[in-house]
Structures are given as structure tokens and as C-alpha cells.
């Protein structure tokens, strides 16, 4: 029995046209160890006559001392390619295999069954349209089967074929088959697969692979290969919203500026309007360039170069979409995370997040729960170990464009990269963005920033002073404003609520911090959106040394609570944010606690309370407190000044000769001109 392979006939061109026009189905095989995944793929390759004579000869030789079918071949040897795999007789890594029939081309990912290689299984599943879940008829549904099915649903495989293998070893008993299918269906119901078909097969003997087997007359369904040939899996990616991920700005000369990338979904034609997801700047598609000539229209999956009708700021990582149908743009999101590294994931750790062409530093801010892959139960957890699945919230250093994974897998799946080892430590799918004020949208006014800037003869800049309260933001902002004012530039210094409105006026110098003024980042969706409308420069001041020892210690609720606020957001969760909104008194108290010396938990008293003890050195003595605070502030302000000078634009004059105004106000502590990094 062989697959009906196309053979070149007289009309070669027609045949070639057929070859190039076939559809492509990517599927994977998964299941527990020894369920016969590799054997099944070997069988498919053998039956589609893709095992060639020289391979067959070497296979026969290697198949001695192994369990073999009627053909005298251990099919699993066809796929297990690594020496370690051959030695142990198991699959370690995903192997990709290719075969085709008259109707379809197939790319098969053969994935490992062993638990320790689950990450490799996820690798195979992420690009598959369909999954064959193998089950050993003698063993039924196993832990690994459940784990794999859950990961399939997690990475969005929507079509599943339950292959009950080794049916020959249970004497083709329909009762066994029915029992397994019922059990699996019950388990898989909440996973929400679009289709779920069950087929009893014997990979070793070839039952129900290509044609209905005479040995299973009780089975009325389609055999495996015909089913794979006919199932419609391609979700209509062309019909969904247009997304284009800019990978590369193509600028060979001054006359051409194109944006190369792949149409992730939807379609686009010359003359269509698009907006940049990050800046919401609109433009119109002027050309769709390829080597084969310009196109009128590009659809999902095509890699093209787009030329826009006007010069707008677009760079690698930007996402183009249609106006009104833009992706979410946020720096906080909820996601499901599969952990893939031996070093566990802890909330608070910082990683690099890569989604499409966007790479940003990101922090797991909260581990909401861990999902038990066997029972699908959610349980509280403090960390995620290798191969565990959890639901987390993630904060990125700057906002990124994404879609919920369920709506668009290509713009909703991300990986986490360890910042030191650069290993891929986790993979996640975004459930939804966490963002306040989703209903606010940006209004494009005719009298815009550039008009006002022209009128005033200046250019808008936002400077964000950020750092712990008391670190000297105001101290710097005041003289900076004076200096700018002296040069004729209007520098505004409002509270954060006024930021957005004042930014429209022309220039602005904004300060934000904790002491009574909310930092725009990560707090308010409104400020967030508006701020994007301007070029902004960050003077980022990592004030952390005072909190660091306590933070490493991480004793619950004792040492560092509310004190350490790292630039990446770590430690922030320790403060009760809800309460802060409504109780300013408490808030100030909390926020200024770092000014007080750090203390460990109270020691148990060892002396009798009535005996007079030496007064404890608490550090709360006002004089000592003041001294400490002063030293702290001087250090912080020195660093901030450095960063500020580096960030300010040249034309403001600070960088060349303008250090004096800032320096003067703090002169006793600074060497005026030496901090310029010269």
C-alpha cells in the first residue's frame, strides 16, 4: 500500500504548476513516551515512498535487534537523528519531516514525549496548525498526554486528531478505543479545540493510515492520511485585521525609504491608509515593492517592502495597522507563561521580552497562579519551575504593540530571554493588555504641536525627572527651568495631571515623582497615551542602593517594603496602591519611609522590661536622620545632573556652556564643571 503520489506525466508544466500550488499543512505529533510518534511518522514517510533505497538499506541494517513490523524496519530510526536519541531509543528534540500527497504538502514536527523535553514540544507546537495526539491503546490517557494537550491549547493549536495507536496489541477491541476516546474528550472539553477526531491505528502494521483497515470494521471514520489531506485548518488570516511588523528599514539611498516586513494578517493595497501603532501617525501606502515588481495588494504571509506617502517616524519593531483597527499598545499585560528553563521564574525578576521585531526589558510583576497541567486546576504559586505553566502579569519598560493571542497568534506570542545568559527561558501568550482608560483616544488637531512650535520659534521637548521621592528632582527642575527661561524657552513645570494639556502649548519640562505627583508611566493610561505624542527624553535615575540589601533579603513585610523602587518596577508591588489613591497621608508616610534608616524585624527582648537598658541606637535621632538624608540627596542629585546634561539637546545650550545655572544652586556640593563626563 502506498500513497497516491503524483508522478510526472506528459503535461509536465501542469504537474509543476500543481506542485507549486499545493496547500501546506504543518502538524505535529505528540503524546507520551513510547506511544509510537516516531514510528508513525516513519510509517507516513515510508508509505509516501519518501524513504529512498539507500536510506532503506541502512535502515534494515540498523533495525536488527529492534521490534520491527512486516517490512522488517524500525520506522522510528527514520526520525530519531541524534546519537543520544538512538542510544536511548527516545526522541529528545523536535525533528522536522516533509512529505506530500497529491493534495497537500506536509511539514511534520515530531516532538519528544519525555517530560524534561516539554519545551521542545512547545517549539514544535507553536508553528503547527494541527496536532496528532498519540495514545498507546494499552495505556490510555497518561499525564504526558494531558500535559501536551494543555500546551497545545496554550500555543493555540485548534485542531486535534486523537490517534489511538497500537490498536493491534489490544486485538482491535472497539471497547478499548471507545473508553480512551471518552476519557480524552472529557479531559479536553475545557481546552476548546475546534475539531477533535479520533482514529484507531497501528503505525507498525499500517492499519487505518492510508485506507480503512479490514481489521477495524467497527470504525466508521476516515483513515489518517485522507483526513489530514482534507481537513480545513487555515483560519482565514487574510480576513482578520491588517498587521504589518516592520523588521528592517530599507534605505539604499536618499530617494528611497521603505519598510520591509511581513504582513502578519489581513491585507493591504496601494492607496490604503495606515497608522503606526505606537505613535498613531497616519500615512497612506504609496508602493508595495518586491524584486518582481511593485504589487497592487499584499496579503497575510507575504514579505514585502512598503513605501509610505509621507515621511513619518517608523523604525524596526513598529507595527502598522489600519486606522481605527489598531493593536493594543501598552506596557502592562496579562499572559500565560510556559517556563522553559531550569532556573525558575520569580515575580519581580527582569527579562528581555521579544514579540515580533520588538525587544524590550520586561518584568514579571505578579504570578497570579500556576495551572496544574494534569487537572487544569489553578493554584497559588510563588515561582514557576521548568515546564510549568502559569498566569502572570508583565510590565515592559516601554509600551509595545500586541494583540491578544487568541485573536492573532503572530502578534500575541512572545518569548522571554534571560538578560545574562541570553537563553530563551520562557514563552508566553498574551491574554489581554492591562491598561487604564482604554476608552480614551488621541485626537489629531489641526493646530498641532508643530504649528505652535513654529509660532513660538521653539521645539517641544519633554524631560521626565524620575526617581525616588526626595532624590532631588525638584532641586534640579527649578534651576533648569530658570535657565531655559533666561534663554527665552518656555519651560513648564506642572503637576502630572496638567502634563498632557500643557504639552500642547509648546515646550515643557515635566517633573514627576512619587511625592504627591504620580509618575505617568504605568499609572495612568491617559498620561501614557498623551506622552507618546511627543518626543520625550528620560532622565532615568536608578536610586536603589539604600533599598538593595533589604531587597535581596526579601524578608516578608519587614525590611524593604515600600522602599525599593527599582527603575524596572521591581518592589513596587510591595506598596498597597489602592490605598494610596485615597489616603494621601498614608501615602506620604509610605513613600518617605526610605528616608528612615533600614531596620530589621524587632529582636525579641532578652532582658526583663523593668530593667533599665541603654537607649537603642535607632537612627531615628533627628540630627542623624538629617545627616543621612543629606548625604543621600547629594549623591542622587549628582548622578541626576550628569544624566540630565547628557540628555538635554545641544541647542538649549546646556551641553556646551550652560552647566552653571544648575550647578550654582547646588554649588556647595558639586565641583561645578567636572561632572560633564569630560
Amino acid at each position, binding site marked *: 500500500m502506498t500513497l497516491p503520489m503524483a508522478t510526472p506525466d506528459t503535461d509536465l508544466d501542469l504537474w509543476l504548476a500543481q506542485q507549486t500550488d499545493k496547500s501546506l499543512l504543518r502538524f505535529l505529533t505528540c503524546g507520551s513516551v513510547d506511544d509510537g510518534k516516531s514510528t508513525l511518522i516513519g510509517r507516513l514517510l515510508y508509505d509516501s515512498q519518501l524513504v529512498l533505497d539507500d536510506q532503506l538499506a541502512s535502515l534494515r541494517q540498523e533495525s536488527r535487534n529492534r521490534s520491527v513490523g512486516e517490512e522488517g524496519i524500525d520506522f522510528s530510526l527514520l526520525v530519531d537523528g541524534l546519537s543520544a536519541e538512538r542510544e536511548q531509543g527516545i526522541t529528545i528534540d523536535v525533528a522536522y519531516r516533509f512529505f506530500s500527497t497529491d493534495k497537500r504538502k506536509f511539514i511534520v514536527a515530531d516532538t519528544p514525549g519525555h517530560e524534561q523535553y516539554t519545551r521542545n514540544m512547545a517549539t514544535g507546537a507553536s508553528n503547527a496548525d494541527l496536532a496528532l495526539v498519540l495514545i498507546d491503546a494499552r495505556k490510555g490517557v497518561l499525564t504526558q498526554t494531558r500535559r501536551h494537550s494543555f500546551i497545545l491549547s496554550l500555543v493555540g493549536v485548534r485542531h486535534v486528531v486523537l490517534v489511538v495507536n497500537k490498536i493491534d496489541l489490544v486485538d482491535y477491541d472497539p471497547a478499548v478505543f471507545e473508553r480512551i476516546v471518552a476519557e480524552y474528550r472529557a479531559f479536553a472539553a475545557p481546552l476548546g479545540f475546534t475539531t477533535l477526531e479520533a482514529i484507531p491505528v497501528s503505525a507498525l502494521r499500517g492499519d487505518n493510515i492510508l485506507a480503512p483497515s479490514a481489521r477495524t470494521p467497527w470504525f466508521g471514520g476516515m483513515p489518517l492520511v485522507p483526513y489530514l489531506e482534507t481537513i480545513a485548518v487555515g483560519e482565514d488570516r487574510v480576513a482578520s485585521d491588517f498587521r504589518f511588523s516592520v523588521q528592517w528599514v530599507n534605505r539604499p539611498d536618499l530617494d528611497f525609504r521603505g519598510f520591509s516586513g511581513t504582513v502578519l494578517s489581513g491585507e493591504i493595497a496601494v492607496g490604503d491608509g495606515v497608522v503606526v501603532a505606537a505613535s498613531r501617525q497616519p500615512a497612506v501606502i504609496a508602493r508595495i515593492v518586491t524584486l518582481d515588481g511593485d504589487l497592487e495588494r499584499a496579503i497575510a504571509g507575504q514579505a514585502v517592502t512598503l513605501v509610505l506617502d509621507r515621511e513619518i517616524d517608523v523604525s524596526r519593531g513598529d507595527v502598522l495597522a489600519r486606522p481605527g483597527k489598531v493593536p493594543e499598545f501598552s506596557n502592562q499585560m496579562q499572559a500565560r507563561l510556559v517556563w522553559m528553563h531550569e532556573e525558575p521564574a520569580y515575580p519581580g525578576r527582569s527579562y528581555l521580552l521579544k514579540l515580533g521585531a520588538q525587544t524590550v526589558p520586561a518584568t514579571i510583576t505578579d504570578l497570579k497562579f500556576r495551572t496544574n497541567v494534569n487537572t487544569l486546576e489553578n493554584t497559588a504559586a510563588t515561582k514557576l519551575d521548568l515546564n510549568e505553566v502559569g498566569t502572570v502579569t508583565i510590565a515592559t519598560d516601554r509600551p509595545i504593540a500586541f494583540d491578544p493571542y487568541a485573536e492573532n497568534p503572530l502578534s500575541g506570542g512572545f518569548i522571554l530571554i534571560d538578560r545574562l545568559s541570553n537563553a530563551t527561558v520562557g*514563552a508566553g501568550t498574551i491574554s489581554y493588555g492591562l491598561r487604564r482608560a482604554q476608552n480614551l483616544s488621541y485626537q489629531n488637531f489641526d493646530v498641532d504641536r508643530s504649528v505652535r512650535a513654529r509660532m513660538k520659534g521653539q521645539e517641544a521637548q519633554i524631560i521626565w525627572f524620575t526617581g525616588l521621592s526626595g532624590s532631588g528632582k525638584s532641586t534640579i527642575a527649578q534651576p533648569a527651568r530658570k535657565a531655559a527661561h533666561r534663554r527665552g524657552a518656555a519651560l513648564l513645570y506642572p503637576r502630572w495631571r496638567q502634563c498632557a494639556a500643557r504639552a500642547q502649548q509648546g515646550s515643557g519640562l515635566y517633573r514627576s515623582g512619587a511625592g504627591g505627583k504620580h509618575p505617568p508611566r504605568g499609572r495612568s493610561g491617559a498620561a501614557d497615551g498623551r506622552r507618546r505624542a511627543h518626543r520625550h527624553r528620560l532622565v532615568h535615575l536608578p536610586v536603589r542602593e539604600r533599598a538593595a540589601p533589604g531587597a535581596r533579603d526579601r524578608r516578608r513585610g519587614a525590611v524593604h517594603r515600600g522602599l525599593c523602587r527599582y527603575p524596572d518596577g521591581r518592589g513596587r508591588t510591595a506598596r498597597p496602591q489602592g490605598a494610596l489613591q485615597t489616603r494621601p497621608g498614608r501615602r506620604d508616610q509610605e513613600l518617605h519611609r526610605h528616608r528612615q534608616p533600614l531596620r530589621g524585624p524587632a529582636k525579641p527582648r532578652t532582658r526583663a522590661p523593668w530593667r533599665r537598658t541603654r537607649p537603642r541606637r535607632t537612627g531615628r535621632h533627628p540630627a542623624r536622620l538629617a545627616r543621612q538624608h543629606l548625604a543621600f540627596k547629594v549623591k542622587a542629585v549628582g548622578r541626576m545632573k550628569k544624566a540630565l546634561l547628557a540628555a538635554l539637546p545641544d541647542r538649549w545650550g546646556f551641553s556646551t556652556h550652560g552647566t552653571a545655572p544648575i550647578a550654582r544652586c547646588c554649588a556647595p556640593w558639586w565641583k561645578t564643571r567636572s561632572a560633564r563626563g569630560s
Partner: protein
Amino acid sequence: MPLQRLSHLQALEAESIEILREVAASFERPVMMYSIGKDSSVLLHLARKAFYPGRIPFPLLHVNTTFKFREMIAFRDRTAAEYGFELISHTNPEGLRDGINPFDHGSSRYTDIMKTQALRQALDAGRYDAAIGGARRDEEKSRAKERIFSHRNASHAWDPKTQRPELWRVFNTRLNPGESMRVFPISNWTELDVWTYIHAERIPIVPLYFAKPRPVVERSGTLIMVDDERLPLLPGETPRMETVRFRTLGCYPLTGAIRSEAADLPSIIMEMQASRTSEREGRLIDSDSAGSMEKKKQEGYF
């Protein structure tokens, strides 16, 4: 009727172009391995597509063992002149000095010195952090397991047990100092895909792929083409003219020809469909042991 879905060749092409762009955008010093074979020709064509109308933003590196077919070198120079890309040719100077050749030193030693070592030298010399290659997963079993972005440690070794997970089309391109990446944009293509693509896109390839009368000698069942006088003839051996072609190209003393009449692309594709042996059979270096390719890759072979 407007295009509603991509055919599998269009899908493969788009995937490869995306990978090439990702390499150019993410690495400091990428380089493309150019072996002059059909896969390299396809890769070159894809690179031109990926960066059109710009130039290919990385150089092409050819590791010259000095035993390549003369027609290949001529084709290489012609192609470089036509498309104007930057071509770097490297030969292991020590191997050249010692006169390493496959006849006296054996194929495995020769391959190690003139190919593997030479490649490592060239990559180290250029401080390339990413090398793009034309390997496909259907070629060989250990290749079927390799990632598209395949991580190499500082000594260019591949560790199959610690491959990075590679999900969706999000590629982890980050490296520590000294490490490098091998990138295989046409991983998911099959030999048939390559040929049909060459046919559909009219990509120029080395004429050695087409059947023509050529001087050959037969050794243990393999037809070796006598490309120049360096091939030592055994006693009683005389080259005779036969109509042959090559399914794969490498160093002429190590590449077996097949008897064939296929002188154009359609007949090559037709012949391939009817054939019952695998592509790498013509390569003499793979047949040493079952894990030989994996071993070579761990040592840094492409």
C-alpha cells in the same frame, strides 16, 4: 481573482525572506555562506528579494578548498560580477602550505582541515556573529533537528541538548561575547521545493547540474569527474566521456556524478521524482557512520 492564500512555495519564500531580514537587523556582522550550489543560489536569490531595492547588507563567504569544480569558480565570479555583492573567498593557509588533498590525506582529514577548520578560521577572522547557510532539514537526520537560528558556542560547537526553544517566528538572536549563530533560512524547504523554485523563478545555477558529456572515472561504484590533472589516475584507469550530471556539488574528487540525460530543469525534476536514492548519497563524507554529520556539526561543520 485576487490572491486569497499563498501557495506552499510562496509561503516558504516569505518565511525565508523574513528570516534573512531578521538576521540583517539583529546581528552586528552577519555573513552568508556561499557554496555555489543550488541551495546557495536559491539563498542568494532570496537575499536579493529580501533587501531589494537595497543591496545585500552582508558579504558572501566562500570557503575554497581549491578542489572545487572549475565551472563552480567561474560561475561564482560571474554571479558576483552580475549582482555586485561583496564576496570573500577563504582557503586554509596551513592546508594550502601542507598541500592537503583528499587523495593522500583521506577524505575525512581533508574535509576537517580544508572545510571545517577553514570555515572556523574565516568566521573568526571576520568576527562574524551570524553565518547564514543553505542547509535544509530534509537533507539529513541531524539537520532535521536543528533550529533555524542555531546557537554556537565560542568554539563554534553545536550542542544538540541545549538548543534554544524556537516558538512561532520569534527568534532569539541574542549572543554572549564570542558566541555565534548559524542561521538556516531554507530549513523547511525540500529538495523538490528548491528545484521547483529554481524553475519558477528562473534562478541561474551552475551548469554542472545539467547533463553533458564529461570525462569521468568510476571508483567503487561512484563516478568521479576528472576536472583537472590533480586527480591521480589508478593503474589501468582512463577517463571516458559519459553523459552525467550532479545532484549536489562540492569538491570534485568527493562528489559523485550520476548518469543522466536530463539537460534542463523539468527533466531534472522529473528524474528526481523517479529516483530512489537520496541527495547526499553522492557525497562521500556522510557515509562514514550513522552519526557522522552530527559529529561534524558539533565540531563546527556547516
